[in-house]
């Protein structure tokens, strides 16, 4: 369990970096980038989406970090977390839902959407919708198997 505790500490450290980066990007986007970008609906939409995404990622990372912090101080919670991560049924369900590949490709598509956004709004929307649809399909399959298995 000591090895796992170190693993959780490393995860917390990486989440802290992610949260700080997301918050810094969010602040930069809200206070500085807004003035540099051309005005209009598409530019506003892109800027708003980027800020929202940064705040969302920061928030999720922070919540996960708090959860891990609680687990690391409580031996029972740490064991529960370990069991949840290594549970054979959950692993099978995740595999059936295509995780973590779907999550990985969705994130890549989201990054691609953000990069392509300033060049073409059509590409941005296409990638965004495809990414969200893929995530929703993965989530639906996971929910289905969570009920069935």
């Amino acid at each position, binding site marked *: 369990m000591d090895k796992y505790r170190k693993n959780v500490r490393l995860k917390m450290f990486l989440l802290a970096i992610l949260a700080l980066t997301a918050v810094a990007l969010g602040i930069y986007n809200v206070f500085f980038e807004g003035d540099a970008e051309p005005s209009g609906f598409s530019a506003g939409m892109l800027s708003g989406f980027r800020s929202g995404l940064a705040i969302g990622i920061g928030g999720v990372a922070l919540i996960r970090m708090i959860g891990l912090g609680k687990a690391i101080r409580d031996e*029972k919670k740490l*064991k*529960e977390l*370990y*069991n*949840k991560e*290594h*549970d*054979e*049924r*959950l692993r099978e369900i995740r595999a059936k839902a295509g995780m973590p590949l779907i999550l990985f490709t969705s994130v890549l598509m989201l990054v691609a959407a953000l990069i392509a956004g300033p060049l073409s709004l059509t590409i941005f929307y296409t990638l965004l919708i495809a990414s969200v649809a893929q995530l929703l399909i993965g989530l639906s399959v996971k929910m289905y198997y*969570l009920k*069935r*298995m």
Partner: protein
Amino acid sequence: MNTRIRELRKQHKLSQEELALEVGTTRQTITSIEVGKYTASLVLAYKIAKFFELSIEEVFDFSDISE
């Protein structure tokens, strides 16, 4: 697959959560095994049987498995 896990748990006055913690799984997995929705792997079946100090065949009913 039918199992005696619920019965054995009651005998040992254990909750699903306590058993899950002992055998390294989640409460939901124990529930799924008890109601027959999920068939435990050989490793998990062994851990559960070992915890109750019984053999796998004494905990899990393999009679409905066709040859």
